């Protein structure tokens, strides 16, 4: 089926529903998600509020020929990221060859000298990767951001499909869609592949910061999909034999692979932040001696910050001798004097982002900013240029979205997910986030975004 056939079918089928009926089903679906606690947590100054991610029932359709480009591009990007990390933590030839500035790596807050020369099984550093993609006015898919630490959102991808199947069964009838429900199976398979050498039937566990983490629902979801225990730091202990054990009713039981959903900083108070209450003392010792595999590997944050992003096209050419299948958005690195000058000269036309940030926090959108906001941004840029990049305002693509009782265009982005053990598998689908405010370009859930099901056609 082509996109045209499918969108026509969706239009016809939706046409058979009144807006009231449509609205009723969405409301019921959201109530069900709320009952199930399928929520994320928003932190304001004083409160933590559990919210259901707003769900838009009009699916976003990606035909198979377009998907092939995305899939190949994601695979290429993940391959390059893994090669980059291996190089950074071994020979550093890319620095010697001056393809990327050495201090961008070595002075990076997320560079971990503790894992220099460490060999993770299968050479895989980024086991789970989420790559944020937008589509510009010309219809070109472009990478906006790489997420190589602990990317989240996969639970919404699968939960959105379930919601569609339950609330709008007639929309899916006879549609040839690629399935997304086997993500957990692919993840556990990859995690077993990267278990410490010689360990047959390795015990895998998901390491979560705990019930108060904003993504706890997703941790639960993934532990269940994989059929593995969800553990917290306090459940684990590192023995004198450098092995990692979990405390069970029958005593200590070995764990060989941890899919960890906490940042490097918090993993081990003996190696990183000493005030971490959610980590496991001695975990890095176990990791460096190869007694436990951590996924994602320690130290991946150096590869996915927004300054490194600007060099990704060069990195892909360097390791793979290929042109990037998915181009970047044009990016000005403010640590370069030229980039800073350009950014300051065109501030009102650019989007300025802190290099280490996530979740949409700290972003200044020039065309929408007040004079005072621009002045503050200018001062920050001059005080600490290395902390920022700037990009032109991408004219994000839009998709039909139900707003009130009308269907209106809203801006969207897209995060496909790739799993890498011995090889890389890309989920045929992903998280489509939608900016529900008219004209808004910010799709982050913490900033009023919603999501919709993404249909990759077979």
């Amino acid at each position, binding site marked *: 089926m082509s996109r045209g056939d499918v969108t026509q079918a969706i239009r016809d089928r939706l046409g058979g529903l009144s807006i009231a009926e449509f609205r009723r089903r969405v409301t019921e679906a959201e109530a069900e998600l709320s009952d199930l606690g399928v929520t994320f947590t928003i932190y304001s100054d004083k409160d933590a509020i559990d919210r259901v991610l707003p769900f838009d029932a009009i699916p976003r359709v990606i035909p198979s020929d377009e998907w092939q480009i995305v899939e190949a591009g994601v695979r290429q990007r993940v391959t390059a990221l893994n090669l980059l990390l291996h190089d950074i933590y071994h020979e550093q030839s890319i620095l010697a060859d001056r393809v990327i500035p050495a201090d961008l790596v070595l002075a990076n807050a997320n560079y971990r000298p503790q894992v220099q020369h460490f060999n993770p099984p299968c050479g895989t550093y980024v086991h789970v990767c989420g790559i944020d993609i937008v589509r510009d006015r010309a219809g070109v898919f472009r990478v906006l951001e790489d997420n190589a630490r602990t990317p989240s959102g996969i639970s919404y991808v699968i939960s959105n499909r379930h919601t569609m199947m339950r609330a709008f069964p007639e929309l899916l009838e006879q549609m040839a869609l690629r399935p997304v429900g086997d993500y957990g199976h692919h993840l556990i398979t990859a995690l077993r592949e990267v278990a410490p050498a010689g360990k047959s039937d390795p015990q895998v566990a998901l390491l979560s910061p705990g019930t108060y983490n904003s993504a706890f629902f997703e941790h639960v979801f993934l532990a269940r999909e994989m059929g593995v225990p969800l*553990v917290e730091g306090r459940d684990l202990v590192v023995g004198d034999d450098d092995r990692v054990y979990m405390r069970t009713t029958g005593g200590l039981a070995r764990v060989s692979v941890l899919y960890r959903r906490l940042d490097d900083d918090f993993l081990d108070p003996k190696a990183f932040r000493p005030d971490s209450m959610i980590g496991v003392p001695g975990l890095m010792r176990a990791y460096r001696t190869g007694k436990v595999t951590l996924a994602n590997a320690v130290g991946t944050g150096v590869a996915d910050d927004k300054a490194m992003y600007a060099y990704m096209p060069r990195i892909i050419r360097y390791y793979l001798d290929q042109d990037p299948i998915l181009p970047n958005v044009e990016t000005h690195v403010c640590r370069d004097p030229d980039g800073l000058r350009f950014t300051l000269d065109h501030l009102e036309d650019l989007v300025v982002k802190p290099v280490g940030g996530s979740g949409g926090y700290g972003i200044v959108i020039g065309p929408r900013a007040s004079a005072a906001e621009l002045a503050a941004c200018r001062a920050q840029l001059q005080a600490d240029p290395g902390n920022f990049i700037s990009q032109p305002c991408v004219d994000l693509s839009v998709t039909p979205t139900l707003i009130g009782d009308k269907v209106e265009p809203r801006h969207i982005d897209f995060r496909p997910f790739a799993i890498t053990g011995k090889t890389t598998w890309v989920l045929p689908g992903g998280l489509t986030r939608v900016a529900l405010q008219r004209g808004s370009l910010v799709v982050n859930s913490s900033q009023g975004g919603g999501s919709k099901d993404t249909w990759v056609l077979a």
Partner: protein
Amino acid sequence: MPEILLARYALAIFWLARYVERAENLARILDTNATFARDRQGAQHWHSLLELHSDQERFAATHTSPTAAAVLRFYVTDDSNPTSIVSAIGMARENARILRPLISNEMWAHLNVFNKWLQTLDDQALAPGDLTRLFNRIKESCQTHTGITDGTLHRDQVSYFYRLGRYIERADATTRLLDIKYHTLLPHVADVGTPIDIGQWDAVLRSAAGHYAYLRAVSTGVTPSGVAAFLLLHPRFPRSVAFSVAEADRLLAVLRTRHELAGGAAAAASLGGLRNELAMLDIQQIIARGLHEFLDHVQKRLIAATDDLGEAFFDTGTGVGSRVTLDQRQA
């Protein structure tokens, strides 16, 4: 691969069961009290209820007198009172949140919705004419929970720790139920054997859903010692102390044999000893020893068994890390 259960999960499921059981028992007692404590001793019944969890002092700190309205609010909707129904279900839900990886969506969603509903209750819901409906709904919600659990919880260690918690809590609750009526009745020697006296003991039976079960099982009619014997010692009534302790003892034995858990010898000794006592003693011996003293003794054995379970199963591999809270009642 051997069956693995995280110690923290075992602790959470044990207390999840206890908190739901506690809420159900509290609803039963409050319901009966609201219905049958309308006589001239009414005020005293509400006061004695506060002895249920030794709550007199905490209640007095924020209230002037134990009116029906004040005690009901204290035990149903007051979320600052840790022994209220809303607090118990809140704690059950917190434990369920920890257990999300293990329990069914239905179990979680039901507790989530139950908890949300309780949070919305205000004084309006506690109006005298609406109480029976309110307590019925609370009891039914607790029973729906146990039904969903029975129908969806995997029959591995988790399910045994769950039922262990339920029966230990139930044994404890039944002793407390008997204990408050013991206090109410005995000081008023003049009332013993009068219609009010019998009515109060019948109310105790009704709190435990035992009115008709008693009439069927005991031919002599409702007498104080008959009711005490039935609720303490009857081997087949599912809310009696003897039945609950025997179940707890059996469940622990299964964990230690079929599931090959090495620990728990001390808890098994506590529960087994108590089971034997309850099987050997008759009510006259117990009354001769002092009913209140005996109930106190049972409660202490149950607390000791809980502590032993904590040491054996809920905090294993000690030495590093934080110690888990064993008695969540105090937490």
